[in-house]
């Protein structure tokens, strides 16, 4: 292993050692603050290392990993998102009675899993990353044991994820049987001469996609999403929505590009159907929800559909659009859940309409920020979500995917309704009983506040001056 290889892999080492460090630290003394600081610092250090240390544009560690611009960009994105979630988690868990320290180990490990996904180019590393991610998530979702729904959500996710992993393994086996390799490049070169996919390969890919579809929560594999979102603690919910899904999206893009999936009609049709179904079903179900977490859950299904549109459009613009949209979506989702985190009290999460009713008059800043986040999800200008949506539509138009793009437009109009419904509930005048205000320690407030402020700045910055980010993505992808 050369020095460059070592430098490339150091970010993964930092994460693993951070997990071990926290483990020892807990063994010595349980201290939430210390653990939290270690987690935040190691994520930050990892990010800084990734950004500053000069490594060659493209490094490969055979046969498992590839460190290209695309991978590094998303690696960094995942780290910074995990950092933001850590910041929000502290305030959230501080006011809860359960033992909170182990949560950070799980968070770091789940991040490690997602990071492994975005740089893997081999089924083994893929599966390894996926399982590290999923197994950590099982316990993270059920972390607040005393809540009934937490258990339920944890079990549900466990069964679904294990089930889908099994499908995936079978798919991998079939692909291995057909192609004789588990490495993306070798699979691609095996497939290259075929203009139509061999039957076993279709079966293999189908099983693989079932597994991936479950993790992404696209229709028809979306059943678990709403319950898990609702049952999981808020920071974990946003972790699932962002890091976990994002990692898999990136993996999917990489795999699909490598095997040149766009030339196989059968694959494109499957993905188009999934995308259309996700957009419609996600949005239509979201319309009927009375719970904000569930609304965001269903909206995430439709957002995955939007991302699939860019993914299907392919071409350089399509990949840029996916990367850009992920950034916008991460900022927005973490922000929206972050706001809910600051509204939650020690008994339960703020997730009902009643929790935000009249918020504009009780806590105008919080309400304004939450509105901005929702409008960004709806793709309204001035926000990052708008530029992301614009990027996707541009990619779709360039790829001549008119049907998909028009369906996307219809859906984004449907989606508007439930986003502005939340806003209008926040603006309602509240005459009746006030719920006792959440009492949090000021320092706790401060940390969450800073994080959310940073997210808001990022939201508007990316929304108004997106050029820097676009150039960065373009530079990294094509370097």
């Amino acid at each position, binding site marked *: 292993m050369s020095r460059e290889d070592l430098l490339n892999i150091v970010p993964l080492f930092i994460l693993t050692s951070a997990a071990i460090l926290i483990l020892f630290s807990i063994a010595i003394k349980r201290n939430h603050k210390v653990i939290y600081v270690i987690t935040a610092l190691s994520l930050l250090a990892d990010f800084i290392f990734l950004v500053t240390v000069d490594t060659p544009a493209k490094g490969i560690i055979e046969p498992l990993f590839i460190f290209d611009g695309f991978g590094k960009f998303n690696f960094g994105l995942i780290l910074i998102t995990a950092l933001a979630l850590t910041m929000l988690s502290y305030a959230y868990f501080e006011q809860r009675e359960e033992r909170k320290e182990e949560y950070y180990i799980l968070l770091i490990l789940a991040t490690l899993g997602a990071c492994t996904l975005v740089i893997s180019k081999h089924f083994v590393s893929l599966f390894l990353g996926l399982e590290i991610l999923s197994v950590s998530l099982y316990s993270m979702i059920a972390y607040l044991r005393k809540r009934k729904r937490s258990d339920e959500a944890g079990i549900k996710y466990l069964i679904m994820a294990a089930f889908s992993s099994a499908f995936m393994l079978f798919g991998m086996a079939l692909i291995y049987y057909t192609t004789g390799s588990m490495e993306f490049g070798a699979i691609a070169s095996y497939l290259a001469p075929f203009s139509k996919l061999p039957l076993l390969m279709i079966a293999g890919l189908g099983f693989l996609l079932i597994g991936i579809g479950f993790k992404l929560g696209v229709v028809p594999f979306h059943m678990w999403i709403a319950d898990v979102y609702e049952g999981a603690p808020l920071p974990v919910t946003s972790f699932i929505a962002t890091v976990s899904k994002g990692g898999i999206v990136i993996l999917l893009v990489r795999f699909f590009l490598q095997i040149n999936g766009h030339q196989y009609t059968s694959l494109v049709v499957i993905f188009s159907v999934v995308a259309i179904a996700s957009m419609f079903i996600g949005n239509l179900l979201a319309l009927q929800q009375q719970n904000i977490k569930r609304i965001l859950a269903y909206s995430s299904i439709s957002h995955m559909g939007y991302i699939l549109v860019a993914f299907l459009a392919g071409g350089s613009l399509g990949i840029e659009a996916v990367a850009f949209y992920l950034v916008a979506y991460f900022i927005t989702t973490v922000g929206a859940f972050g706001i809910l985190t600051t509204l939650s009290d020690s008994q339960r999460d703020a997730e009902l309409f009643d929790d935000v009713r009249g918020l504009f008059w009780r806590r105008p800043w919080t309400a304004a920020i939450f509105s901005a986040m929702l409008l960004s999800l709806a793709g*309204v200008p001035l926000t990052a979500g708008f530029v992301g949506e614009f990027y996707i539509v541009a990619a779709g138009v360039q790829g001549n995917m008119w049907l998909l793009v028009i369906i996307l*437009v219809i859906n984004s*109009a449907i989606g508007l309704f439930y986003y*502005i419904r939340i806003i*209008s509930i926040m603006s309602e005048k509240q005459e009746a009983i006030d719920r006792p205000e959440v009492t949090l320690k000021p320092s706790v407030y401060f940390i969450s506040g800073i994080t959310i402020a940073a997210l808001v700045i990022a939201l508007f910055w990316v929304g108004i001056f*997106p050029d820097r980010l676009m*150039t960065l993505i*373009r530079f990294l992808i094509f370097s």
Partner: protein
Amino acid sequence: MAIILPGFIVTLLLGGILSWIVAKQSHLYARWISLLTLLANFIAIIIIWIQNMKSPASGSSWILNFSVAWIPSFGINFHMALDGLSLLLLSLTFFLGILSVLISWKEIQSRVGLYHFCLLWVLAGITGVFLTMDLFLFYFFWEVMLIPMFFLILIWGHENRRYAAFKFFIFTQASGLLMLLSILGLYFVHGGQTGIYSFDYFQLLGTALAPKIGMWLMLGFLVAFIVKLPAVPFHAWLPDAHSEAPTAGSLVLAALMLKTGAYGLLRFIVPLFRDAAMEIAPWAMAIGVLGILYGALLAFSQTNLKRLVAYTSVSHMGFIMLGVFSFNEVAAQGVVMQMMAHGISTGALFILAGMIYERIHTRDIREMGGFWMKMPFMGATALVFTMATWGLPGLGNFVAEFLTLVGVWQVAPMLTILAAIGLVAATAYSLRILQKVFYGSPVVSMELTDLSFRERIIMGALVISIIWLGLFPQPVLNTSIEAVNVMLHPNNKVEASVLPSLKTGDAFSLREKGGSDE
């Protein structure tokens, strides 16, 4: 000098933020800051207008031009330019902006800071729409103006405000997204042809489009514009939004936001998609006439005063559809005039409705009557504006509708006759307003105070402007004529450069010219 163009928007945005901040100290500060911001902008645009009248920019219809790179990765520039048409509409925007702050002086007592913030941001969005020459930026402003308007209706509206706000937002946003698709389609078609990927209006102007593609792209734009306008099958959002919005909200909606649709038709559909637009012109004109008649009919049957006025807007906007799609200079000038005159007259009627609501807390005209005796000043101004609405000569709307009809006659005489019937219908509903509200025996026994000093200033300014537009329409027509001609003949640069000589002449002298080369 050109920096003034983004300056207009920046002052409005900053003024909005400042109003919000200072409202914590005193509501009065917020009102004054908004008023002064708008006043400053109004004075600036009037100065530009006067300068331009003295020494018109020769050889080009563009008075000012400002451009900086914004998102170079996509070929997006922050490009703004001012021509005669935008100048007129900006003057209207700032003038009515001032009035909308004034009419809210007493009406709005809750969350004053946020209210003025929203109001100024809507106006900033509208200003941006009228100025921008980059299609991406245009879409950006097109959407930016929606959100504060949504909040204006949602928070300060009447009983059924939530429904109205949702309907307004979803209608306009959904149609706007279709426009975004078309904008992107145009962008890639143009990029594919020339290798220059740009959203710039002037770059895109000469794009050669295959008929089928051109038609689809045009329809995307058209949907956005005629929902905003609104033309008849897409007008469902308007009566709700108008009648539930607070007075200033109705004013901005009717007098300014509808004009963005009309402006879009003139500025984008006509020059960018000339062939496709010509192809659907008969249908579009028919829709226009349908709107005129249908709107008038519905206006006649309303009992809610604000709803009634809202439907008169539908009727009047029919003239704009009719005029734009006749592809005739005289009619297009009529359209410009209609934008100004309708903005003032309908705005005034909404203000009157708001003033009546402030006094008797109802918008139901069955509970009104005999107001002339109690409030003669209000009655007299109402008379002026109902007369304007039915198109009495001497007032602005007459000039507008007359020019439109004269222009359209050369293209579609039958439709002109039908549209002229709309004028009769307009007389019927306008007289009904007067008769039910101001004449007859008093229905309410309560004491009614006539217009206060502030209200007299507002109505006085409006009365003067509508009479000015009616008696001396020439300055307005002169200002817009070059811009209108360039838009109608985008490829005919020679003609555009000859035009300044016509500036001092009669607008009608264009008729022969227009007729000869069609």
